[in-house]
């Protein structure tokens, strides 16, 4: 892979997450083979690539749901490759899911609170009696969730609603809220604007930018909406068939011929259709 590309990225901050020669296969299928890239602290990094390129698998490997065959994941200078998902979550790796994974039996508020699970200490005995620590912790959590997260994402009006009944766009927002409640240092978003129209995408883009700028949280996201990716990300990594085929600043990647042929396509659909039509 070209060193030139790497050097060209402008960030000077240190990498908060480093993926090092990661390989992962399912039976005979190699979903990832020797993927390496870095996410710099305070950046928005986008992971793009064709369907089935291994983006979600990459997220799953980083958050510990899949066990890579070889390679390392280094978070904040420490190798976390052997850790179970919950302890990675506790370190500040938070994520949302490609297919919304909210807990339908809970209210919005409880879903958000759940994000804090790993940071709370209440044990079963405390919980049964709801005295002392349990009570104190719950009150603090409630206040923080209300005042920081719910206000920020503008979902006050639905906090006692049960998530199942919410429209899709709001559900995605609740997922984001839950991830924020995890006290993330890095937030991984899997297709945050899939299925949204232009207007809703604008809202979500605003939240993502604010999370980065006001909360200082690093963002790694997978997204197929090139308009948004190119506009808001600082660094783009392109995967194809489980391998990195390009990375760099959005503008660089956008014009990379390999990326165009594997992923972006000609970009002018209407014209092409008219062309085939004529043929």
């Amino acid at each position, binding site marked *: 892979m070209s060193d030139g590309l790497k050097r060209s990225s402008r960030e000077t901050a240190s990498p908060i997450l480093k993926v090092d020669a990661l390989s992962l296969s*399912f039976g005979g299928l190699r979903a990832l083979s020797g993927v390496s890239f870095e996410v710099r602290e305070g950046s928005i990094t986008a992971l793009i*690539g064709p369907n*089935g390129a291994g983006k979600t698998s990459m997220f799953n490997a980083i958050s510990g749901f899949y066990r890579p065959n070889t390679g390392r994941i280094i978070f904040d200078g420490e190798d976390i490759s052997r850790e179970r998902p919950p302890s990675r979550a506790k370190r500040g790796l938070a994520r949302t899911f490609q297919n919304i994974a909210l807990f339908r039996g809970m209210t919005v508020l409880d879903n958000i609170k759940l994000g804090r699970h790993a940071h709370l200490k209440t044990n079963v005995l405390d919980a049964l009696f709801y005295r002392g620590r349990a009570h104190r912790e719950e009150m603090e959590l409630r206040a923080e969730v209300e005042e920081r997260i719910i206000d920020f994402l503008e979902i006050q009006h639905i906090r006692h609603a049960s998530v199942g009944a919410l429209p899709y766009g709001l559900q995605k927002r609740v997922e984001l809220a839950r991830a924020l409640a995890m006290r993330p240092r890095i937030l991984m978003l899997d297709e945050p604007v899939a299925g949204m129209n232009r207007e809703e995408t604008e809202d979500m883009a605003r939240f993502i930018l604010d999370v980065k700028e006001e909360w200082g949280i690093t963002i790694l996201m997978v997204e197929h909406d090139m308009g948004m990716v190119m506009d808001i990300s600082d660094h783009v990594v392109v995967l194809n068939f489980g391998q990195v085929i390009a990375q760099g600043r959005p503008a660089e990647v956008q014009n990379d011929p390999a990326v165009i042929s594997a992923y972006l*396509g000609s970009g002018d659909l*209407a014209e092409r259709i008219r062309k085939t039509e004529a043929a």
Partner: protein
Amino acid sequence: MDAEILLNINNVEVVYNRTIQVLRGLSLRVPKGEIVALLGSNGAGKSTTLKAVSNLLELEDGAVTAGQIEFDGTDLATLTPHGLVRRGLFHVMEGRRIFEDLTVEENLTAATFSLSGRGLPITPFDLVYSYFPRLYERRKGLAGYLSGGEQQMLAIGRALISKPKLILLDEPSLGLSPKLVEEIFTIIARINREQGVSMLLVEQNAAVAFSVASYGYIMEMGKVVIDGPVERLVKDQDVQEFYLGLGGGGAHKSYRDVKHYKRRKRWLS
């Protein structure tokens, strides 16, 4: 629109769980041989409209409480969901809904049930494979492990098997890479042209939808707020701003510059 009307939705209202009203008097037409696009924000009721047409609401505790839907001259209320498919109305559902633990080929076989009762022979899947060569390569593999784009191809392929008159397509671009979106829509246009199949297309990606459709409807809160031939819609200022992401004067806006306050859509006021 002088062509023969294949699908005619008239003032339909839909209620879920006997309490939540989603469609509030929606009307819409699909002429024979055309692609009609249906756009709208999340939760506007687009999928609900399609489910009402294909009679699948019952599965989700929904019901059409008013209005009527005609397909090819028949009132749909009298038909069962599978009966409808067998008359040539095929619904490619949101989220693709392929049978994950069946192979690609078995998925196509499942779609052959739509041919019963029409006296149509079950032909080999050549046509599907000719449109989607990639499916041919993976025909023995479990569909659950296909990539998103391949799954979408399979979903459309199943529709082709049924030799339909009308396909309802629910967000075929959802989650697909730009290139695949292009491919799929190219094929959609081809199918429409070569097979003469009409389509009702629900899409979030307005630009793409407009590139294949001839007529468009935009709905909010369960009813149509604006409709017209595609050429006219793309010139509408609100459509440009809220669906195509064009700022004043037709230039693309950047997501970085989006403001917190927003102009209200004209049709909502």
